[in-house]
């Protein structure tokens, strides 16, 4: 944060009249205290409480005497803080991951010959098996969540009678609320045993079970977001088609789905993001083998995903090993953020187009 021309900036930002010097002074004092709090907290100082108290005092004074300005300043601070959290996450994740990346170089993301993951002295960290595991489980999950999710969204927004919709919609939302660890527990106790018993798997845990469970878990995300997209297709477009004598299904197929296509794909992308980041189900179900399955397409094999790697090893890790776990976190964070931004871009473009057409 720069403190150049704080007076003028504050005045401009909050529309304070130049003569009202007491507000500016109080604002400046508050801002100074907040900056000091932030810096001391970042340094890990035990004196953080002093400027924090000063800040709270200033806020109290402001709310008492200049409520409107203070409220506006506080909402502005909350907005900045939201952005700051994302920035902090990025900075801390990357800075913690750098040592491992520096030591392993590019081979951290490309090395595909054994041994790929060795801790305790040998220090070999290649994320390739985990990236493959994440990719395979995500593909499996989206094979389930993609088509079923879009079909569910169509049902809720276009097909279901009102009474049925009032049941199905909350049910789907509730499905999103079931904690991942509960899914994981069911997978661990029931499905893993089932697979070992009925498919004679040599080890407990397999990618296919993780894919199934994660698919089920990302299904509600796809349904809700796709439903929003489908519902945002203007009624006039649909009635135009129906007036030509088409059936409802023909209208859905040739008008609604094409018009909502980009929004629906944004929904699927968000679902992919959920599936990539799903942690506990994978951690609990998988058998934690940091090597590639052999052959690569053996979905009944055991490997590791990026998320389960972190969750299962953070407790025993230190030094470069811990840093390598952070590198896994960086891969996750970057891919999910790219997916999120991509889907937002698609959504915005779709809204733009629909508004232009209608």
């Amino acid at each position, binding site marked *: 944060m720069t403190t150049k021309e704080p007076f003028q900036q504050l005045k401009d930002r909050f529309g304070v009249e130049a003569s009202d010097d007491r507000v500016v002074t109080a604002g400046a004092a508050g801002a100074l205290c907040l900056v000091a709090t932030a810096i001391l907290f970042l340094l890990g100082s035990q004196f953080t409480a002093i400027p924090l108290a000063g800040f709270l005092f200033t806020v109290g004074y402001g709310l008492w005497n200049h409520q409107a300005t203070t409220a506006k300043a506080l909402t502005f601070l909350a907005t900045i803080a939201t952005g700051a959290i994302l920035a902090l*996450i990025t900075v801390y994740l990357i800075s913690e991951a750098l040592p491992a990346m520096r030591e392993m170089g590019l081979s951290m993301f490309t090395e595909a010959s054994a041994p790929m993951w060795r801790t305790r002295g040998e220090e070999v960290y290649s994320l390739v098996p985990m990236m493959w595991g994440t990719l395979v489980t995500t593909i499996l999950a989206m094979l389930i969540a993609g088509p079923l999710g879009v079909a569910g969204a169509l049902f809720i927004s276009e097909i279901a009678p009102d009474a049925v919709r009032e049941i199905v919609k909350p049910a789907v939302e*509730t499905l999103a609320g079931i904690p*991942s660890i509960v899914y994981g*527990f069911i997978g661990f106790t029931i499905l893993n045993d089932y697979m070992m018993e*009925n498919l004679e798997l040599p080890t407990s845990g397999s990618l296919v079970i993780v894919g199934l469970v994660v698919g089920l878990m990302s299904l509600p995300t796809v349904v809700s977001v796709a439903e929003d997209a489908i519902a945002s297709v203007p009624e006039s477009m649909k009635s135009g088609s129906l007036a030509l004598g088409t059936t409802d299904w023909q209208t859905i197929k040739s008008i609604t789905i094409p018009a909502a296509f980009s929004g629906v794909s944004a929904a699927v992308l968000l679902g992919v993001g959920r599936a990539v*980041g799903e942690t506990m189900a994978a951690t609990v179900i998988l058998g934690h083998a940091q090597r590639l399955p052999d052959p690569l397409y053996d979905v009944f094999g055991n490997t590791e995903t990026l998320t389960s790697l972190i969750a299962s090893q953070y407790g025993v890790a230190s030094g470069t090993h811990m840093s390598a776990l952070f590198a896994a*976190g960086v891969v*996750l964070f970057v891919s999910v953020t790219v997916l*999120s*931004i991509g889907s937002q871009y698609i959504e915005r473009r779709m809204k733009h187009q629909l508004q232009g057409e209608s």
Partner: protein
Amino acid sequence: MSGETASRTAAPGIDTFDRVALGIVGTAIVTFLLGWTTLFDRTSPDTAVAGLSLFALFGAAFLLAGAGLIAAGIASNVGLFETTADQYTGLGTGVAFGVVGFATGGLVTTILFGVGATGSVLVGLVVALIATLGVAVLPEDIGTTLPVGLLALTWGVLLVAGFVDVGWVWDPPSIKATFHAPIVVPLVTIALSLLVAWSGAIVAEEFGSQGRQNGAYLMIGLNAFGMIAVLLLLILFVVRKGLPKLLEGAQFGPGLNISVPFLTKGVVLGQQYNGIFPAIVGTVWLVIGAVVLAIPMGIGAAVFLTEYAEQGRFTAVIETATNALWSTPSIVYGLFGYAFLVPRFGNRNSLLAGMMVLGFMLLPLVVITSREAIKSVPDEYRDASAALGVNQWQTIRSVVLPAAMPGVVTGVILGVGRIAGETAPILLVTSGQPFPARAPSILGSFRFTAAPPFVQNEALLQASSALPYQLYAVITAGVGQEEAFGWGTALVLLMVVLGFYAIGITSRIYFRKKLNQ
């Protein structure tokens, strides 16, 4: 669906035609459901009805359905019944059959000839191409019935003639799994039942656009039904598994004297009934902390973004950042807390770090839902208030926020339900001893000191348990910890989370009803 009355009266036999089609759909739905119950060992493959084993019964059903479908298709095609079938099946249906053809062709080649992955994929592609093009150019009444009918007939013959019986095994060399008939037969039966039901539904509306609508709606409806079934089964399953443990040693009455040791006790060696009280308290404090942090900040940010800020680059950046935060995986939040918060709170796992991390996770959701709610407050409200000569902040405080409150509350409750079940971040920043004996006492641990930091609360800086972590601990503890303890915990966790969801959804319905009055 009344457009077909004309053709219906024209052909007198059409009632029989429809009845056959509905019979086929009904049969397919029965085999579909039986397939699932067999897959989960609820129906034994050894079940025998009238001397026929379960698999032979499946086979007989498919023989009948397949024959019926083919007969109906041909009857319609040669003009025995007047239907509304199109001249061509079309590429859409063709591609769907291409996918079916790919799976069938590929699997059959590997199973019969032991061809490797590349070979079977190639064969699958060839079959898919033929199926796609072949079906696409066939007349609709043949294209939608004949391929499904043939598949059903083949499967029926395989089952009835005993080529695939209970002892059938396929052990692919390159994959670790071995496939036995009790798994394979139900799976194939489920998939084929769907195809048959779809085709039957098309026949039942005499093909054409109505037929296609009927087929598609049946599939989409089944999908929705399936989602509800999954939800109910999951909840019922956890309740059935967890209830005995939850009620272990519980006493009800006389009067209000209720004691449920599983909910009110910790884990102490030698105690008769161990419980999860510390974890419940931990979760409650985590949720309270997260809410206290996230709600003022989130609503504040939403107010600024919607009411004060000019819509431009700044709001767009913050909006993108909020959405990115919303989709950031929970384990990444955990890593962040581990690197950023834990070193600053005495270098050990603490309740406070968990509260903050969960608060950060809740924040984007509060911002997003509050923005939606504030945006949906009509501008007339603001104008009317401004016309009274009130300044902007007073308008926001007394008009906009109260009007937006229902939406905000609903969103927040649903968000809280979500973070109450989060495990990964707690694992990294809060978790301590897996089976604690005592709950953290936050209120009783405030100490005021003369030296900085003036206010101390030891309990906030101590590691704590939480319901989802407790469940994880049962899993990692492996031998020694009984599984029933885990099911009991899972049930309590599910009740807490679903309770939040029930309140959130009910309040939304209530507010919406009130708004529509």
